């Protein structure tokens, strides 16, 4: 358990530095601002206490905020992501059954790829929507926020798949 936790911490640090040193430096365009670092929140096992998930997400967001000098944007968005993941896992997924089948977290091998993509895209969209709403912080730019969130979610999802291909995650 403790070794596992350290491994996840290391993975989170790698993803955050990946975001800070590489993704943030690439100019994808006005509408596309992907944030694939949230992958590690989606990779935490179902068996973990929900408070570990929440605080883990929050403090990693705060750490990235410190690096990017962006106030508390990442912290708020990541905490919301962890919160919604706990709610969705409890209400919509039968986590015990999934764990009995040998999955520690949701992968494309469970059910089918479409199910996995829907799960990840929905959670990613929540994160991005909170992030951009706080970033733009005005109601008049609601549709701009929505468009940026949708495009960025798709970009983030593709980058996550790429990252998973390159770095083989157990």
């Amino acid at each position, binding site marked *: 358990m403790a070794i596992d936790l350290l491994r996840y911490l290391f993975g989170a640090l790698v993803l955050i530095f990946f975001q*800070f*040193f590489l993704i*943030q*430096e690439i*100019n994808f365009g*006005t509408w596309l*601002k992907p944030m694939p670092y949230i992958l590690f929140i989606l990779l935490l096992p179902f068996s973990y206490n*929900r*408070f570990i998930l*929440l605080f883990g997400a*929050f403090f990693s*967001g*705060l750490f990235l*905020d*410190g*690096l*990017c*000098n*962006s*106030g*508390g*944007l990442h*912290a*708020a968005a990541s*905490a*919301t992501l962890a*919160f919604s993941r*706990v709610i969705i896992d409890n209400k919509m997924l039968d986590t015990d059954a999934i764990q009995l089948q040998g999955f520690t977290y949701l992968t494309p091998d469970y059910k089918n790829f479409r199910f996995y993509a829907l799960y990840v895209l929905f959670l990613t969209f929540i994160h991005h929507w909170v992030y951009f709403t*706080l*970033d*733009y*912080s005005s109601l008049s*730019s609601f549709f*701009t926020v929505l468009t940026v969130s949708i495009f960025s979610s798709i970009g983030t999802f593709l980058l996550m798949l790429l990252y998973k291909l390159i770095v083989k995650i157990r």
Partner: protein
Amino acid sequence: MVFLIRLLRKNLFFIVYLILMIFSIGQVVRFNIYQQSYYFNTSSSFFNGMSRLKTNITDYFKLAEVNTALAEENRRLRESLNQNTMLKDSQQVLVKDSMGKKKYTYLTANVVQFTTHLQNNFITIDKGINNGIRKDMAVLSPSGIAGIVIDVSPDYALVLSVINGQFKATPMIPAANFRDGSVSWNGKDPTIIQLNGVSRFEKISPGMDVLTSNYSVKFPPGIPIGKIQKINKSTGSSFYDIDVKLSTDFHKLSHVYIVNHQESSQIDTLNRRTKNGN
């Protein structure tokens, strides 16, 4: 009481989430309104060290562009040298007095950190109070304007970038003899800034240079802001919506100049006096 505790325990997860949310949104608001963040003031050494490491790496990838920009700036400065100009008319006499007082002095600094992907973008530079940086000083890049210093620590300073919703500057368009309006960023494209307050009777066209105005207190006059790219005529308004292509590429920022206005304190005193009604 028992009921309350039971309610609290049942919703503990939600309450903890709420507290974390309030904390982080408070940080965002604090950062946007007072333009100072907890991280910048207290734990700046670690985070600034990380940012330094990042710029040390990424600066190498920008070398070619930075060199081009510096060479272009050198060309511009060489052209403006006095020995290049010749008096055209015997009636016009240019009085250049060597006893004149210098109005602006310049300091150089390296960019430690900058963002372009947020709505409120900031630049951190590696000079602070110890190097004579003060609040409200203008910051220039080799090719144009870059921002205004808003917070200083002993060795670092935080700069409000041009591509920040709160930035405002007074422009002039010499080709159209226009000195009014303001430039500000609408948050969409980090290479485009918006010029507002230009009436429809002004004779402007795409490609004209937009420079900082001589009415500006912070910026020296004649510093490039950008070139007019697109002129939109919105219906029902007597003003143009103008897109200006920024001359500073904020993705490639690595060296900046800080402008020290020698008489800024006098202007400040005057402004304060008028505000107080004396």
